[in-house]
Each structure stands twice: as C-alpha cells, then as structure tokens.
C-alpha cells in the first residue's frame, strides 16, 4: 500500500501531453478498462492511500471516508475506459473521481453540518503547509500564480478545493456576502488560468 510517486509531479498541461515522465498508473488503468482484476488490485495498492487521504481531508470523517473510497473504486472499475492517458496522469484522474464523489456527499449534507469541520482546517493567511512542501516545477508555477492572488482569495480557493467548502461556508469564514465570495473565486480562478498560461 505504498505511494508510487510524490504527487507533486502529477501534472500535465491542460493542452495535452506535457512532461515525458513515465506514469506507472496509466498502463494499470488501461488494463483495468479491459477488465483486468489483477491490475485493479495493483492500482488499489498504488493509489488507495492518496485517495483515502483525499476523502479524509474533504469529508473529515473516517467512517464516511471508508464508504466513499469503496464507491470511488467501484467508479474507477466501471469508468476506467473513460480515462485518457494522453490528457492527464492516472493519479490526477483518480483524485478527480474521488473529489467529485466527496463533493457530491458534502453538498447532500444538511446545511448546518456542512462547515462544521472546516473552520479549523483553513490555515491562517500565509504559506500553507502544502505550499511549502511543493516540489515540482509545475506545482511551483501554480504556487507562484497563487502568490499573485490576494491572500484571502488564494485561501478561499484552497479551502474550496482541499476542504470542499461551499460558497456559504466560505462567505461565513471570510465574512463577505455569498455573491461576493462567488465573484472572488471566479475572478481568482480566471487570474490563475491567465497566469498559468502566460
């Protein structure tokens, strides 16, 4: 149950091929797409810790994260044929499947409990632990681009992406109206995109 790679190198350009660094999960996913059960077991060994960590951080609840991870691997088994190795790294695709499922669960929760765990997990403004751990050049690039956003907007983007916070939870946290928060995030994301593609 080991990580095959630090996730920091897990990136390709949105426009396609990107780095030539080998992706050990891509061939496993293509074997899984053809119904290869042994490849599926290997894929689980190589990725379950990262995906479980993803679910834990987003859901903040161990029992629900275990349920979520089961569902995520059922989806990976049934949807592996949709994975395009020319477009994204295997881990990027699998984390997207995991985040999507976790966000669906979060949005289905009653509004009251939605942000219960969120307040402590948003770091104070400044460099978050993950930003300081970022290693690859792509990750450094996005960190640089984050640096160009106003600090509270960068924190809001991270809070949404990593902790699954809703507009309501973010607007409460940053004490701004929901519409303002939505506009912050949209503009922040577009600024990030421009910076990354510059």
């Amino acid at each position, binding site marked *: 149950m080991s990580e095959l790679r630090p996730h920091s190198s897990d990136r390709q350009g949105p426009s396609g091929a990107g780095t030539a660094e080998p992706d050990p999960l891509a061939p496993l996913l293509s074997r899984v797409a053809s119904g290869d059960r042994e490849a599926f077991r290997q894929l689980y060994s190589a990725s379950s810790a990262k995906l479980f960590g993803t679910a834990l*951080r987003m859901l903040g609840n161990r029992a629900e994260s275990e349920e979520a991870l089961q569902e995520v691997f059922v989806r990976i088994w049934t949807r592996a044929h949709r994975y395009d190795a020319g477009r994204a790294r295997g881990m990027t695709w699998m984390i997207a499947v995991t985040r999507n499922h976790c966000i669906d669960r979060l949005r289905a929760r009653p509004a009251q409990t939605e942000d219960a765990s969120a307040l402590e997990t948003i770091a104070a403004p400044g460099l978050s632990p993950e930003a300081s751990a970022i290693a690859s050049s792509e990750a450094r690039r996005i960190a640089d681009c984050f640096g160009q956003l106003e600090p509270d907007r960068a924190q809001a983007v991270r809070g949404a992406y990593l902790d699954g916070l809703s507009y309501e939870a973010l607007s409460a946290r940053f004490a701004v109206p929901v519409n303002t928060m939505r506009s912050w995030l949209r503009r922040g*994301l577009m600024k990030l995109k421009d910076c990354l593609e510059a």
Partner: protein
Amino acid sequence: MNGEADIAEGDDGLAAEYVLGTLPRIDRAAAAARARSDARFAARIADWEIRLAPLNDGFAPVRAPRTLWPQIETRIFGAPAPRSRLGRWSLLAGLGLGAGLAAAVVLTVLPVLRPIPDAVVAELVAEGTDLRVAARFEPRFGVIHVTRIAGPAAPEGQDYQFWVIAEGGAPVPLGLLREGELAAATEVPPGTVLAVSLEPLGGSPTGQPTGPILVTATITGS
C-alpha cells in the same frame, strides 16, 4: 457588473466552479448532466482538473484500513479473490458464507458494470502424451477451473502443478492438479499461456517449474 466580472462569466467559469466544488447542489447536478452530453464542456472540466492538480499535494496519504479492499472486491465481483490452491468446494463454501449480503450488494452494482464476456475454455495438450487437461475460466468470478480429463495421474511421490503465464511474465503457480477439480483466482487475457508441469509431491519448492512442462494451451482472441 464591470468588465473584469464579465471575463469570469461563461462556460469556463462554470467549469472552474464545478471542479472547485463550490456550486450549490442543484447547479452542480446540472453541470454534471451537461458534461455527459456536451463534450466541449466536459473538456473544459478536464482542463480545470489538470490545471488545479498541483493542489493535490495538499492531500496527505493515509493508509486505508485492511478491511476495505475485500469489501470493494465483494461489491464489484461478488466475492473477494480466493487464495490460490483452494479446491472448488471450499471456494463455493466461501461464496456461500456471505451469500445473503453479497447477493444484496451485487444486485445494486451489476447494472453499471460492463457486460461480462462468456467463459473462456481451453484444453491443455501436447505431442507424445495422453495427458489432457481442461480449463474453464469464468470472468464473472475471475476464477479458473482445471480438471484432468484424460491420461494418467501423476506418478507416486509426484504432483501435477498448474501454472498461468502472462504474456512476457513469469509462471505463477495456481495449485496442484490431483483428483477432482482445481479452482483458483486469476485472469487470462489473450496471450496467456496455461501449463501443467510434473513436480515433486506438494509442488515446486522454488515457486517456478522445476520438472518438465507436460501440456500447455495459449489463450487466443478475447
């Protein structure tokens, strides 16, 4: 609204918000439905997933509990992969054990699975021997059943051992072929070679064939 806001409008902003996860439940469901029928919108979502992927560094790996994998296997396949060298009857007993639960879970999962191909049947033969071995692989369970259908039993003090050799891979021992049927979990994609070798009683001590390969078959097609 000023010009800066206008730039952030439109499909790309919606795709970004979908990936970020901030859309309210109903808007999120609508965006997901659109992505299923609108390839350009789906591509925008995929681009944002890649663009924001460096943030994934923020998810620290946590070892999942050991019980999780068998539960996933049960949900998808109906039963966890049995250890090799299980006889058919102990395999069936194992399946029976959790039958109620497994059946209930499988019913809800099956409709989303891809169609499962029919059983793969092979006969292992060779020149110069009467030994013939039949193998039947059931994709539904990922289990192969192997039986000696002709020729002598293994000489006293020796065993027939059954191997699966993936294309370009090393032989993997799946059990001893004695009276009755051998059942073992495996996969047999096209190009896989099935083989039976003659080994010391109890099977090869090294994990690789040590005696002569007596009969083989190669899986063709799909």
